[in-house]
């Protein structure tokens, strides 16, 4: 009951929240560089003069980890940072809580530059404001599930009873009731990661950093965990930074998608937009294997306005996936539908547009050539 109320509240407040979130990001990363090697500052000079990653490694023996990263992470949304291994995504997320310090640049949280923080302030930031979920779970093997879940409170010096109450609450929430006194090695991988999520939630921090949190799990459990995360997010509105190498996962979770390659941002924006308008061949390649019907939504394909036409076959929600529409149309490609948003018509979807949208841009470019040949 309360949950549905919160959810509907969230959807009604959505447009305003979105604009205000854009206005003051929770975290903003400005001109961030990270270079690994003996004399990174010197190497930074070369990079600023236009030396590329390969040349930097060959001539100066330094590794360019991150190059001029500018990302705003919106309050209360899921920002997914995606890239293949070696693209620097794990390095980037570790800059947000300064497990790694940058060579140059700024990381601002609530408009405070955390790079100026001393040891005390940094520890407080990690205890109270940011929590992290790890790919390999990284639970303490000698502590019980309950003690692991309550780690941040224990570290922050909270009493045993507060710690147990909070830990128990969040363990229940992630579906681990009754396992409080078990040790991590007695649980399966999926359950261990639930403990990892409970540990992050117990800290009651606004920001959750998730470093390939579901990559080590098998596909079915991974889907379960994604659903769990989305469900929790409906309720909690945390600022989540999620790292993944899996585009399906990224598209499922992301409000804002950042694609990294070789340490720089190739493209960022709303995932539907990236899918429909890939900025370069690398991303075209990336998105070409996706089941577009399941990912693309009506609102991204529809034509706005023009709602008075009489020949409409029916009404569909703006958030429905194209797959839903195809199922509803029974395969008929000549129909058009009225698109509804919160009970009001906002546009028209022609099935012909839908079918065109299903073909990746690079491939559709090849279309006429095949026809001519």
């Amino acid at each position, binding site marked *: 009951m309360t949950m549905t109320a919160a959810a509907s509240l969230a959807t009604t407040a959505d447009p305003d929240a979105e604009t205000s979130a854009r206005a003051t990001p929770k975290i903003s990363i400005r001109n961030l560089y990270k270079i690994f090697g003996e004399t990174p500052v010197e190497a930074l000079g070369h990079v600023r003069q236009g030396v590329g990653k390969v040349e930097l490694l060959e001539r100066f023996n330094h590794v360019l980890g991150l190059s001029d990263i500018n990302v705003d992470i919106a309050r209360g949304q899921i920002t997914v940072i995606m890239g293949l291994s070696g693209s620097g995504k794990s390095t980037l997320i570790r800059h947000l*809580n300064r*497990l790694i310090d940058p060579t140059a640049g700024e990381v601002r949280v609530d408009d405070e530059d955390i790079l100026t923080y001393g040891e005390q302030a*940094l*520890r*407080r*930031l*990690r*205890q109270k404001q*940011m*929590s*992290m979920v*790890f790919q*390999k*779970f*990284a*639970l*303490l*093997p*000698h502590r019980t599930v309950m003690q692991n879940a309550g*780690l*941040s409170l224990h*570290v*922050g010096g909270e009493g045993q009873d507060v710690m147990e109450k909070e830990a128990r609450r969040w363990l229940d929430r992630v579906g681990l009731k009754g396992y409080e006194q078990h*040790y*991590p*090695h*007695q*649980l399966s991988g999926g359950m*261990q990661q639930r403990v990892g999520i409970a*540990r992050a939630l117990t*800290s009651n921090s606004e920001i959750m*950093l998730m470093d390939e949190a579901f990559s080590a799990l098998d596909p079915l459990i991974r889907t379960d965990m994604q659903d769990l995360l989305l469900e929790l997010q409906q309720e909690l509105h945390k600022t989540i930074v999620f790292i993944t190498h899996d585009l399906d996962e990224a598209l499922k979770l992301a409000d804002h998608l950042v694609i990294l390659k070789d340490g720089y941002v190739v493209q960022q924006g709303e995932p539907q937009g990236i899918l429909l308008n890939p900025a370069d061949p690398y991303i075209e390649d990336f998105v070409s294997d996706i089941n577009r019907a399941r990912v693309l939504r009506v609102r991204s394909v529809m034509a706005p306005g023009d709602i008075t036409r009489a020949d409409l076959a029916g009404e569909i929600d703006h958030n429905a996936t194209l797959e839903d529409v195809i199922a509803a149309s029974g395969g008929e490609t000549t129909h058009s539908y009225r698109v509804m948003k919160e009970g009001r018509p906002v546009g028209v979807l022609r099935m012909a547009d839908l079918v065109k949208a299903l073909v990746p841009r690079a491939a559709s470019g090849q279309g006429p050539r095949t026809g001519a040949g």
Partner: protein
Amino acid sequence: MAFYTGLFDALGLRGWCDADAQDGPMTMAQLLARSQGGGEVTVPWWNPPFPSLDALHEACNAIPRTRDLTSGLEQLFLDVRDGLRVVLDPLTQPLSWLLDGALWLFVSSPWWILIPLIMALCYVVSRSVSLILAVAASILLLAFIDHYDYAIQTLSIIFVCTALCVVFGIPIGIAMSKSNRFQRGMLPVLDMLQTLPSFVYLIPLIFLFSVTESKLYGIAIILYAIVPVIRLTDLGIRLVDKDVIEAANAFGMSGRQKLFQVEIPLALPNIMAGVNQTIMMALAMVVIASLVSAPGLGVLVLRGIRNLELGVGLVAGLGIVILAVILDRVSKAALARINTSHSTG
């Protein structure tokens, strides 16, 4: 006429050689040669003596003999000894008190209290009934053949020395794991301590301290036995899962919290393996230390060797084996218990 005389003449060093010609005491070889009445021995050209210090000395008096080197070393040691003693004596005095106190406590406690106490201690660390029964049987066997007092003396020395090895060794190991530079400095020292023959420890210690003081053998045992616990503490902490350390950092743990709540607990299996090794090495050294008045079963072994009392030596040796087996089993059982509660999934 020595073989190398011509060489020094040819180099024009004759004057320097004879400048302060002082004939030190003769070597045994010279004495023998003189008593046999043999004059100069002619050396064939194809078999020259190796140009060692002694051979060169024969040709040139200014070059010192090897025995001057060893006696010089001895003199140096004697010269610094008093200074060292002023510093080391008060520092190491508590060790004597500990060893003597423990010996007195162990020996003067009645056997019917001490044996159950030992069994209780074994149970606490190992939680294995069959093991404490074996321990009891072994001690009763030793008592039955009148080796109880000796065995208890040996045990008390091992107890004190192992405890001190742990107290000093674990912090040193932790410091090594935290600082690569300190580790680089310590490794050669540890290598040396481990490779020096155990008798060699005793030589400088005999000079430094009086043989009647128990700290003499205490230091020898500790130096010999402390190495494994240092090494394995260092290794254990370095082997702690990097992901777990990162998680500890990410949740804002301080260095101290990390050390006591994560690193030491996770390194404990390795540390305990080090303690097990330390106990076994302390037992090995306590036998040799009987040469410098350490009491216990070693004294009987020594008597067996010195007086050719075969039976005494063999029975005492058997006693040592029994002690070794007990100590090994109990510490391994403790290690196994830690391992099962730590097993990582």
